[in-house]
């Protein structure tokens, strides 16, 4: 058997389920929890096996990073990988897939990048270092948006100027504003891994269009995720449960019954708000479509490829949890059945999905839909749609606790309805 590279690094997601050899200790690597997809794994694994040779695990790995750094959801990704194949999950970053597809390297890098960012943010916050500084995740990478560079001397000069003009209060106010901005950005980067990551990755790597409403989440497309596509999964595999993504931060994972994982359509709504971070860059995950809001990249990739038929997705959602968004959508579709669902969804051009769908399913329809979806998100703020632009039905959907299949709005929810 081939030696499992991840296990050697101490991070094999499959643990003793791993199909590769774990020299020395079978359980050592097993630690990676596959929780969300725990049970699903089984299911997925089997299905994914079929794909593994074909599909690159990549998609999975990507999801992990998000969830991964914080919560070890990485393991679950593995299942996705099979489904996801394709596309660079950049977002996921974790390519712990024992199946180690060639793209896993890219994913690994992404994952590492994201993990690095999170760690750096945590250190930044706790260390008391100067807060008004730009930041970039790795040397030679561009700066991450959202941070401004102010040197201590500049700040002090401002203070003195305001002092002499007897206007100290306004100095304090603007200072407070800057501090709040900084804090928000840091929290964003720490928590919204998936979405932010997508955005970040695009920022950092492709400089992908910011336009694409980040990941389908925020954008209308995100909504689609929660949508029906998953239902396919849910019903079928236990995996579906796994998906529930765990809406991590912000996402109100409303694991609805059937599309468990995705169930969070509401989450999407939330996600959209959360994904504000994402909006910036659309990581072109597997979708290859930058347009597809980065979010799409994440989740979809994996599911699409392997996901579809394989429970693999379920794992995905879990990992996605980070993004909460990404996961649900994509994985769900993964399941072959979802394909169908997807197909239908595709029409909605859930951007996020679309991408994946194209990847995995190859359904061109979906992919096309993506662009469409992207287009649809034309609201000034990609993440939200102003209330007046929504139809009554969409509004009702947003206001309800869960999205109903078949009625999932394509546009992102209005900001007011987003409650995380």
């Amino acid at each position, binding site marked *: 058997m081939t030696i499992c590279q991840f296990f050697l690094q101490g991070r094999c997601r499959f643990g003793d389920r791993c199909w590769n050899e774990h020299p020395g200790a079978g359980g050592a690597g097993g630690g990676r929890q596959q929780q969300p997809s725990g049970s699903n794994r089984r299911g997925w694994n089997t299905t994914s096996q079929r794909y593994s040779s074909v599909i690159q695990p990549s998609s999975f790995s990507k999801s992990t990073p998000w969830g991964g750094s914080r919560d070890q959801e990485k393991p679950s990704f593995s299942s996705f990988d099979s489904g996801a194949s394709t596309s660079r999950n950049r977002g996921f970053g974790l390519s712990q897939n024992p199946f180690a597809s060639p793209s896993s390297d890219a994913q690994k890098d992404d994952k590492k990048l994201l993990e690095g960012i999170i760690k750096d943010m945590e*250190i930044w916050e706790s260390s*008391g270092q100067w807060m008004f*500084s*730009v930041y970039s995740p790795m*040397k030679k990478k561009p700066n991450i948006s959202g941070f401004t560079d102010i040197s*201590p*001397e500049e700040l002090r*000069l401002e203070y003195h100027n305001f002092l002499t003009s007897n206007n100290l209060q306004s100095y304090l106010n603007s200072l407070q504003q800057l501090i709040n901005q900084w804090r928000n950005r840091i929290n964003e980067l720490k928590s919204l891994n998936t979405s932010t990551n997508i955005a970040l990755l695009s920022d950092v790597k492709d400089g992908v269009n910011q336009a694409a409403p980040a990941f389908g989440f925020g954008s209308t497309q995100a909504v689609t995720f929660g949508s029906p596509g998953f239902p396919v999964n849910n019903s079928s595999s236990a995996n579906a449960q796994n998906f529930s993504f765990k809406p991590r931060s912000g996402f109100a994972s409303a694991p609805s019954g059937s599309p468990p994982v995705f169930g969070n359509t509401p989450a999407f709504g939330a996600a959209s708000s959360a994904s504000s971070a994402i909006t910036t860059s659309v990581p072109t995950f597997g979708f290859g479509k930058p347009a597809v809001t980065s979010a799409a990249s994440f989740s979809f990739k994996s599911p699409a490829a392997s996901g579809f038929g394989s429970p693999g997705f379920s794992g995905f959602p879990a990992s996605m949890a980070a993004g909460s968004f990404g996961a649900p959508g994509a994985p769900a579709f993964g399941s072959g059945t979802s394909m169908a669902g997807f197909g239908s969804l595709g029409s909605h051009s859930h951007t996020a999905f679309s991408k994946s769908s194209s990847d995995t399913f190859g359904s061109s329809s979906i992919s096309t839909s993506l662009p469409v979806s992207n287009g649809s998100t034309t609201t000034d703020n990609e993440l939200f749609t102003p209330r007046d632009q929504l139809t009554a039905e969409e509004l009702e959907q947003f206001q309800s606790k869960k999205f109903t299949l078949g009625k999932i709005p394509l546009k992102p929810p209005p900001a007011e309805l987003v409650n995380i």
Partner: protein
Amino acid sequence: MSLFGTTSGFGTSGTSMFGSTSTDNHNPMKDIEVTSSPDDSIGCLSFSPPTLPGNFLIAGSWANDGENDVKNQNIQRRKVRCWEVQDSGQTIPKAQQMHTGPVLDVCWSDDGSKVFTASCDKTAKMWDLNSNQAIQIAQHDAPVKTIHWIKAPNYSCVMTGSWDKTLKFWDTRSSNPMMVLQLPERCYCADVIYPMAVVATAERGLIVYQLENQPSEFRRIESPLKHQHRCVAIFKDKQNKPTGFALGSIEGRVAIHYINPPNPAKDNFTFKCHRSNGTNTSAPQDIYAVNGIAFHPVHGTLATVGSDGRFSFWDKDARTKLKTSEQLDQPISACCFNHNGNIFAYASSYDWSKGHEFYNPQKKNYIFLRNAAEELKPRNKK
């Protein structure tokens, strides 16, 4: 020059100036304290060049001499002070000049007769020490952050870097700049050792200039650091040619970067410094900004000073730390070596690293002098 305030004699080096140091920790290293140091934060220090006999120290500060009450606006007189430092360790305040805004950088001309000062009042002045006159020689649209004297075989000029994103070169006799170069962002720090100049800007910009013939941009470098640049210093190789620079950031890290290294991946490196909890990784570290970097002119080793109130000496070739000081009670905001490397001067004053809440105008600011000949000898490479 009467010695203001300080009563403790300088006398021998190493004795702390003020009698009791048991309670206050302003001088844990027991270094010589400079008399009549400025009343407010010292932003920059500079020693006289070798052409001048003896050692003279210039310090630019935020110290305000004029009416600083809020009702009377714009009557600021920010000081630049000059001391003579004698071999015995005695420092004698010699002269001072005023700017209308805080002084951010100072430098000497190569013949030691003039001092150039850069200030937040958007101007730079040339101070003739013999006549004690200062005239304005440069004008920018925003505070001037760095100033350096360039002495080339075929020209000499003053280089000023400003927050208005330009780098200007001035012939001191003319009020128009000889040359203006655009920077990608505000200039945060710079260093010059002919024929190389390095400028680090906001948004992690880093540009190297070559100064032969006329200053021109040589290369833009991707910053090896992840956070805001704070200070930069050029180092020379064994043949005394500038070959690279050290870049410090607010994140307690210094990057050593060679311009044309034989093996970039191995030769360029970064190291962490000015952090608390060195070995204890469980508790979050406190990370401090590196406020200044200076290279020993003879040994090639470097000194860094940080917001944590410590200074450290490093050997970049052996990649080891030579010494770290005790912690002072205030951040160390600037540092400088004299021309032969015998004296290391560092300023203990608030650098605004924690915002205005921690600003205490009553706190005394110090400049310390330390004998640097021994401690900065390089470690022998194994």
